[in-house]
């Protein structure tokens, strides 16, 4: 009798746990997309938090020091997505290089980035030449 109660309690606890975890994860998964994939999703992509990765298109970077608005375009060779981010560009951020942003796509087609995660690569720099 006691054994059954114990097993029942364990099952209930385990069930509650799984419910919490599954529910929690579902709300916190952030999918990674590329500009082509994002555009292909159409209006269903609006409002969902996701990560967008691509190349910072050369010539697209606009930085307004007064409003701290950073605008640029991410592309993957087939499609481009305009991005806006509030805050100074991270140090690794340059045109022509890869970048991943995390944020949401607005109804106007502009991706509002809450954070910019720049691709971290081996860093080298020549010594100051005489």
């Amino acid at each position, binding site marked *: 009798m006691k054994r059954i109660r114990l097993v029942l309690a364990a099952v209930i606890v385990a069930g509650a746990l799984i419910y919490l975890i599954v529910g929690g994860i579902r709300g916190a998964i952030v999918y990674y997309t*590329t500009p082509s994939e994002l555009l292909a999703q159409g209006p269903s992509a609006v409002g969902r938090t996701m990560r967008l*990765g*691509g*190349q910072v298109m050369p010539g697209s970077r606009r930085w307004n020091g007064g409003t701290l608005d950073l605008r640029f375009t991410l*592309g*993957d*060779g087939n499609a481009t997505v305009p991005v806006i981010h509030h805050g100074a560009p991270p140090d690794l951020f340059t045109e*022509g*290089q*890869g*970048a*991943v942003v995390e944020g949401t796509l607005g109804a106007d087609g502009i991706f509002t980035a809450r954070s910019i995660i720049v*691709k*971290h*690569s*081996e*860093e*080298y*720099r*020549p*010594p100051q*030449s005489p």
Partner: protein
Amino acid sequence: MKLSWPRVWAGIAVAAGAAVLLLVLVFGLHRDPKAIPSPLIGRQAPEFVLPLFDGGTLATPALHGRVVVINFWASWCFPACYEEAPHLQRIWDRYRDRGVVVVGVNIQDQDRPARDFIARFEQTFPNGVDRLGKISIDYGVYGVPETFLIDRKGRIVHKYAGAVTEETLASEIEPLLADADGASP
């Protein structure tokens, strides 16, 4: 060891869980989590004219029909460029008669140290200087060393960031050589 059913079941359950976990981890080893697919993969490799250390120039249109390995390097890039230099030379020795060209592009460097580097490693493949940095910008080169593998049709097939090894390059070059469509070697 008494084999009672609950015990067996418990053992099986844990073993199964462990096996699944290990499989997932093994899978994880085959992916590069930091890889953002380079937009250049699959595109035509940008053409350029490279002034060589030995004098003269190398123009990439002349390389069409051959498999090309373009390696961006610098003499101050320790230790990775020093690690991979012998491997690149060995690839050149091994495949030059089979229609593969290794091209070294020296960037952000000085003449004397670059020539010393080439001499120390006894490199014999074409090696030149990207004086204005235009070639590295076209290829989206961010750091050194970076190596690009280009097939016979001039498409960029692979990009390596960091030191490459002879085995890695060879394993990727062989299928490209076997690919018999397009121009002859």
